[in-house]
């Protein structure tokens, strides 16, 4: 939601929009996690699984963020389109 807000409405280039988006997700995630944890129907958490995911994801996040500058705006936009399209179809068909 944060990416189209910037690119389609505010005219911010894709590279900055993608980076701004993940910067803004950080406080949102930090604020939302306790709400999910302590409200009714809270999801369960497997911290061992989270640890292994994070071992890979922090490396991936570093590599991805370092590469961002080198990817042209058009290709970056099309990559966002592919990811949003795939997730959108999945959510519609297999909610």
């Amino acid at each position, binding site marked *: 939601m944060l990416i189209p807000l910037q690119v389609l409405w505010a005219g911010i280039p894709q590279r900055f929009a993608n980076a701004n988006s993940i910067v803004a997700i950080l406080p949102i995630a930090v604020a939302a996690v306790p709400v999910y944890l302590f409200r009714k129907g809270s999801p369960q958490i497997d911290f061992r*699984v*989270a640890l292994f995911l994070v071992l890979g*994801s922090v490396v991936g996040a570093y590599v991805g963020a370092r590469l961002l500058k080198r990817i042209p705006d058009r290709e970056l936009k099309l990559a966002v*389109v592919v990811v*949003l399209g795939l997730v959108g179809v999945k959510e519609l068909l297999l909610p």
Partner: protein
Amino acid sequence: MSWRDAILIVGGFGAGFLSGTIGIGGGALFVPTMTVGAGISQAVAQGTSLVAIVPTALVSTITHIRQGNVLREPALWMGGGGVVGGIIGALVAVEVPGPVLARVWGGFLLFTAYRLASQALRPPKAG
């Protein structure tokens, strides 16, 4: 370390890479990595994904700031507004049936993908 742990690390790397380049939280890949790749239940996968997003977004954020990819003012406004929206959204999300929420979200994503694709594929203006 088992094969399951290795799948989690590889899936985590992919989710982190998308987080760093595309700017998404990573849940879109964390959750299927756990459910399809490691046979973990949907409920546990969603809760665990939320926790894994925080350190991933932290590394992306620090790296992006150091690389000069961040426009501080829009990021601060979105982050501040997002905290309020995130708390309200989380409170609403636990009350609304999951499939309804997922379909509305899916429709929004497809519409957004269409708008972005139109912009990316538009021929550049002459001059």
